[in-house]
């Protein structure tokens, strides 16, 4: 399987290299859908210039990267394009390996269950065959590397690619079962953009499951491991934050990075939900609604963790998707990351209800973004409401997509325990309804 992956990476790199050399690169790097104030390359260059001049890069209101990123770019500024491509490559390979391991586990579990005769007999067609599973990792890598969203984000040299790579490495380490590395990468991802902290729950559940420790609040072993993992996470976070402090010699970056993410002062339009609301809102409601909007990202962790406590990898997917939908400065690069997971759930395809409608909506919206932007900004004939309407529709589409997968996943599990052909009490055919 290494050969197709290599081929894929070569194709992906070629596409990116060609686009980097074309005149499109400049255009793409200006698009609000692709870069946000958090990860725009222009701002990185500005921050580096300030750093070289001996001024704190956070002294203005331009630069919002974390100190470690800027020092990384300080060394590789001349090879930025290569770094972006390598980041994409790392993400793809990490996801590839992670999904490979995950599928192996799924298949083994399925085999044991079959041998133990735990599934109802009519559920045989729901089983995942090795043939299906074989190509899934490759498809995941392909979905990530060849997705137009990733390509755009990479060509714009958005630092989103690096964040994605960190999250992908975190997923890989977690699935491989290495608690320490997983905690370190989780700390790194959190350090980069706060929101990945919600991935703590799925990672913990997965690692517990791997060690055969039941999620039971009264068991001592559960608390022991939770504390252990939390300690590793907090410890590495403290080390990273401390390192940033020593590199820079000041705490400037905390308000400028995390304050910026949480209080959303920059209302440049993007594909997220924040900008329009806060541009329209009266100033004295702002704090309240910022809390409401930000809680949205973190809030779903608890119910989802309870509902999906036996399926931590799916939970991880749900969390990544929710982060990328509800975060304060989303870009298409974030969407690409969770969309890369879709092939892993291809066996849910038969239970998806709205996939046709949702993919039509997502496709149409992606095409309409630049059109409405043109009408608003260049032609001056439309206004921000047009653009926001599409943003809203795009996000509704994403939410529907994710909830559709969620429903399909639960439904499959239900069938696996209750049989495929459900009967009502009177013997007629029953249907499951999500209410």
């Amino acid at each position, binding site marked *: 399987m290494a050969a197709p992956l290599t081929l894929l990476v070569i194709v992906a790199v070629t596409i990116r290299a060609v686009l980097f050399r074309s005149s499109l690169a400049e255009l793409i790097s200006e698009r609000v859908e692709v870069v946000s104030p958090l990860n725009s390359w222009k701002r990185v260059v500005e921050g580096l210039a300030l750093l070289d001049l001996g001024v704190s890069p956070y002294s203005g209101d331009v630069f919002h990267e974390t100190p470690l990123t800027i020092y990384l770019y300080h060394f590789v500024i001349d090879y930025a394009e290569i770094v972006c491509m390598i980041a994409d490559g790392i993400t793809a390979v990490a996801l590839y390996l992670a999904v490979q391991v995950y599928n192996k586990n799924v298949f083994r579990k399925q085999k044991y269950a079959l041998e133990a005769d735990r599934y109802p007999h009519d559920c045989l*067609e729901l089983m995942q065959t090795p043939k299906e599973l074989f190509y899934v990792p490759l498809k995941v890598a392909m979905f990530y590397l060849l997705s137009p969203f990733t390509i755009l984000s990479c060509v714009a040299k958005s630092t989103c690619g690096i964040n994605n790579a960190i999250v992908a490495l975190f997923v890989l380490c977690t699935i491989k079962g290495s608690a320490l590395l997983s905690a370190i990468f989780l700390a790194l991802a959190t350090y980069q953009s706060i929101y990945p902290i919600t991935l703590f729950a799925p990672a913990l559940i997965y690692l517990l499951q791997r060690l055969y420790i039941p999620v039971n609040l009264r068991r001592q072993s559960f608390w022991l491991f939770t504390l252990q993992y939390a300690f590793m996470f907090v410890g590495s976070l403290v080390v990273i934050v401390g390192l940033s402090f020593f590199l820079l010699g000041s705490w400037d970056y905390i308000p400028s990075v995390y304050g910026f993410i949480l209080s959303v002062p920059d209302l440049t339009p993007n594909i997220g939900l924040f900008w329009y609301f806060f541009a329209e809102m009266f100033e004295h409601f702002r704090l309240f609604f910022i809390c409401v909007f930000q809680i949205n990202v973190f809030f779903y962790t608890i119910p989802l963790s309870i509902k999906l406590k036996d399926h931590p990898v799916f939970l991880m997917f749900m969390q990544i998707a929710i982060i990328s939908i509800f975060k304060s400065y989303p870009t298409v690069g974030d969407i690409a990351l969770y969309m890369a997971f879709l092939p892993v759930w*291809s066996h849910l*395809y*038969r*239970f*998806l*209800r*709205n*996939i*046709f409608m949702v993919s*039509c909506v997502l*496709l*149409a919206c992606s*095409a*309409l973004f630049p*059109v*409405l932007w*043109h*009408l608003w900004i*260049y*032609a*001056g*004939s*439309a206004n921000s409401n047009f653009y926001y309407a599409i943003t809203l529709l795009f996000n509704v589409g994403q939410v*529907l997509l994710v909830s559709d997968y969620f*429903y*399909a996943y639960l*439904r499959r599990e239900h069938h696996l325990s209750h049989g*495929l*052909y*459900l009967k009502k009490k009177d013997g007629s*055919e029953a*249907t*499951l*309804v*999500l*209410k």
Partner: protein
Amino acid sequence: MGLLSDPNRRRALTNLLTRLNTPICVLCYLAGVAWFMGLAFEPFTLRTYMSENAMGSTMVEERFPAGERALVTAREFGAHKRKSGAMPVDWLVKTMQSRGLEVYTQSFSRRLPFPDENKERYMVRGTNVYGILRAPRAPRTEALVLSAPCSPDNSNNQAVGLLLGLAQYFRSQIYWAKDIIFLVNEHDLIGMQAWLEAYHHTNITGMDWAPLHGRGGSIQAALSLELSSDVVTSLDLVLEGLNGQLPNLDLANLFYTFCQKQDILCTIQEKLQRSDWDSVSGYSQAVQTMALMVLKQASGRPWGDHGLFLRYHIESATIRGINSFRQYKTDTTTVGRLLEGMFRKLNNLLERLHQSYFFYLLPSLSRFVSIGYYMPAFGFLAVILLLRALDLWVQLGALPSVTEDGVGSRALPLQSSSPSLVSILTPVVISHLTGAALYTLPVLSQELAVQHFPVSETEAVVLTAIAIYTAGLALPHNTHRYSSIAKQGWRVLKLVAVLYLAVLLSCTALINFSLGFILALTLVPVAAFVTPHVPKVLSAVVMVLLAPGCTLLYCVFAFQELQEAPVSLIDGWMLFLSVISQGMLDHALYGSLVYPLLALFIYPCWLILWNILFWK
């Protein structure tokens, strides 16, 4: 969310939609066309009204007295122009200076990609002359533009004369709060393009121009004047700009109000408004006016010198004097007063014109159709594509999500559709390569064609384009062998094509409604009903007749018919050829998007549908 999650209701809905698909589609098409025709019916339209407060209630008294002197200046200008054989730059500079303006000139040159036979130009070299009247009452942060093109023949001298007369008169007034720029541009749109690019420090089309030495504030509005006779019977307002962009409706309202005030006959599309809207002829007049507007807008070209201003977010229109055989004549003084009034109102603007509509169609000057009213006409057509896509989705191996709610479908559809997803890639890629060839080759290969065939460059370009277009039709034979893999292949291909077309047309309709609507009118029936199982020859003929190229041909004939200048078949064909070359030139010179849109997207999309017809 009942509809989204309750399988029974969903099934009922999808069953209804698939069983009644064809009748619903036919109904939608008829509804779309009927809706569009109904737009011109007066009770369904809205009366225009001035939305901008700053222009609405203020009183303006026009006192421009010097119409006769303007005509004398015009004759002088004409004489100098004849003498020098081109634009009399020195004379213009001197005259403008004597009128008390800050005068600057700008030279520019442009080599066309191929000779323009309509206007007989290839290497264009010219000079723009403009004079700025500085605002005495405010900081110089905003400006208004009055422009008159200087054409090589004898026409339009009166416009330049009136412009100079107005300059002199405006100079003596004290109420100007915005700079007023008087611009005489040579080589109509090319000169205008050079001036605008230099004014805004951009270079979009790779033109050579000298930088401007004098500049006013940011331009708020612009009027372009075209007058070719000493007296006029009516004034025509031209609104359609580059890529079908229109100025704010308030500008049209302003023109209409002042025409009423000055008692000048005003027209749009050179059609006089009729008062008997309830009679057949009154309605047909309104329909014709609107259809002309739709055709002009769809062409995406600037229909007057104002057209390029719109790209820079400047509201602008062309006012064209018409002299016909009507009894009632208007003299230059009155036209001057009209312009004075309009400029004084524009001078009162506190912010850019933005209150009124930007998306509208005008069945007459006093009535308009806003975007909310005309979009459903397009919506009905677009819905057909979505319904067909839904139908195909259901047909594609009776997908579980739609039919049986996940339970009881035996064959996994993924197996059958995933190889065909790869196999349809070939026709899609080939079609787009043909489109790319249609876009690039004609201009590139003109030299080669001229060497080998007895044609001029322009003919070579147009004929190459037609040749590539026709050659594209022979392509389906190349993709046959892939289809044997999957019998369902054509359905997947059609699903992709239908969705692609739907997205493409909606995006087009948002930017340029007319273009989107005209394309939808011909392409939607093709997309909806083409399958490999319909009678081949008949469908092939129908498809060719409804192809984008033929649509253009019909538009040419329809346009001539509506302008009351019907042409014979041969003349129509020649016109068609020149329209193609003009479209390419518009793209190369001003950045019009119609030609690339047709060549790179619409035509490939049609080719995919053509592929489906010959799918084996």
